């Protein structure tokens, strides 16, 4: 059977709640999400823009700060002592696992490198304490690591704004992987890279993952990356996980109407078929549609879809879908 998962997410709910001067708003950006990530596995996550992927990553990494609030559920890493939920853990314990066990490449993190500091010092500030050793040792390690990402040592002398988008992005990947963590959360780490470098960076992430047997949670809009890299794939829409399963199954036999549309909208080199985007407007998460959140745009929507929210159902080994129109085993 499947081994003990390294990360188990159960009924996780996290909402943005804000009440400023009498205007109250609640955005259910992560709404009842459950999935497991096995050791040695790369779990991909795709979905609509602003469907809550980044929020889910933040919640799992325990980076919950107002206005984001944990409403319920839990995310349990196996390297945490059993029954210590990440959210109940004390800050000292969290600080210990961050970067050495769990590292998080944030979305757009390339734009948050301190603009007034050279890359060399950013590395020093950040990773020197975890790596230890003398300064010149650390420098050689950094240079070697950067070269795996095809970055010239001269970037160490540059200020962030002097680098191209892709170079900055690789710098942040280097920062997150230099301590060789057990679990890597990567939120769109390769969007600004050309395909060759992207492939190499993915290869590097893959090889680090193999070397230390770590697992990766990988968010990207690039379905080609998912097809090539990930073992499992989850699809999100409007704060919910609507489909999850082995990547091959999702690509070859997508079940949920949104997933089906997504897979069929992908252009390929060498074919000239006209492709279209999704019609209708994306849901307003502050006031989401009733029942199935996809129903206003769904070609298969029926009455039950408007009133009742579909539950995740198992339709094949490890393949789960939340849709009334897809027959499953049981609720």
């Amino acid at each position, binding site marked *: 059977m499947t081994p003990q998962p390294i990360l188990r997410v159960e009924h996780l709910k996290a909402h943005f709640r804000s009440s400023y001067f009498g205007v109250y708003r609640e955005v259910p950006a992560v709404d009842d999400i459950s999935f497991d990530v096995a050791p040695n596995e790369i779990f991909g996550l795709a979905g609509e823009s602003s469907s809550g992927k980044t929020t889910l990553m933040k919640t799992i990494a325990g980076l919950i700060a107002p206005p984001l609030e944990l409403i319920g559920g839990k995310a349990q890493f196996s390297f945490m002592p059993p029954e210590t939920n990440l959210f109940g853990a004390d800050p000292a314990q969290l600080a210990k696992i961050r970067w050495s066990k769990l590292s998080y490449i944030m979305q757009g993190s390339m734009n948050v490198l301190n603009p007034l500091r050279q890359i060399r010092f950013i590395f020093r500030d950040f990773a020197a304490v975890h790596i230890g050793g003398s300064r010149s040792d650390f420098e050689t390690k950094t240079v070697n690591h950067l070269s795996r990402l095809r970055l010239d040592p001269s970037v160490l*002398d*540059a200020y962030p704004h002097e680098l191209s988008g892709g*170079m900055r992005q690789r710098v942040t990947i280097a920062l997150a992987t230099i301590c060789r963590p057990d679990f890597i959360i990567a939120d769109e780490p390769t969007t600004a890279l050309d395909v060759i470098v992207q492939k190499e960076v993915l290869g590097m992430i893959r090889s680090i993952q193999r070397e230390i047997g770590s697992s990766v949670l990988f968010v990207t809009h690039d379905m080609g*990356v998912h*097809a*090539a890299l990930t073992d499992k794939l989850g699809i999100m829409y409007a704060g919910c996980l609507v489909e999850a399963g082995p990547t091959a199954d999702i690509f070859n036999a997508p079940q949920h109407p949104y997933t089906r549309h*997504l897979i069929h909208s992908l252009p390929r080199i060498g074919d000239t078929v006209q492709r279209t*985007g*999704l019609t209708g407007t994306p849901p307003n998460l502050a006031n989401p549609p009733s029942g199935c959140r996809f129903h206003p745009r769904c070609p298969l929507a029926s009455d039950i879809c408007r009133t009742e929210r579909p539950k995740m159902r198992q339709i094949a080994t490890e393949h789960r879908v939340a849709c009334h129109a897809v027959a499953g085993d049981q609720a």
Partner: protein
Amino acid sequence: MTALLTLNNVCKSFMRGGILSRHRIEAVKNVSFTIENNRPEIFAIIGESGSGKTTLARMILGMQEVSGGTLSLEGNRVGGRTRKERLAFMAKVQPIFQNPFEAFNPLKKIDYYLLLTAMRFGGSADLSEAEAAADVALRQVGLSLSEVRGRFPHEMSGGQLQRVAIARALVSKPRLIIADEPVSMVDASLRMAIVNLFGELRDKLGLSIIYITHDLATAYYIADRLIIMQKGEVVEAGAARAVLSDPQHPYSKQLRDAVLSPQVTGSPSIK
């Protein structure tokens, strides 16, 4: 045929490093190409990251000086010295940026930018003319002023925002749009909606678009011509589909082969 945009051996170098260890970076080296006036096209620029694509775009937009060669728009140098010249220039060339969520000031209503562009470039004399001009532009991207009126950026989706950004660029009736990675932050379905829109703008409005991207599949899908850049230089240029189906330069071949196809055949291809 008259040329709309001409680049002739355009170069750009930067100095980097501290006072003691300064060295030169040749970000763009001898890039030349021409976009014709009466043959609207989508001109894709693809290539290595750090190969100078953004720098090239910023030079065409007059946001950065060239350090060598000439860059001219309808025979005049880009940018312009006086404010009047700059306004005349910006009316013809407009940018679209990478991140739709960042394209507008989050504290401002988005119609403000549309109306302002109409007043400053579109020749609208008063508010009602500006509104009419903004509405026309928004309809070209499948929206309307009434949908956008009074709304803040966070009240729109990424796709809507990117379309409003395109509409704003259209208000001044430009001849050329420079889009630097306009789809890399949005989901696959939205991506198609936006590149399809580019195709429509070219076909219906006769607009040329310089489309910078890392997504070779959409370049193949929509672009007419493309150039491939590596280390500041153009290594291959030609008709988009021909180049991508049968690349000649070793770097282009490598690039073409590194494209990850959205298909699963057996086990993961990255080992």
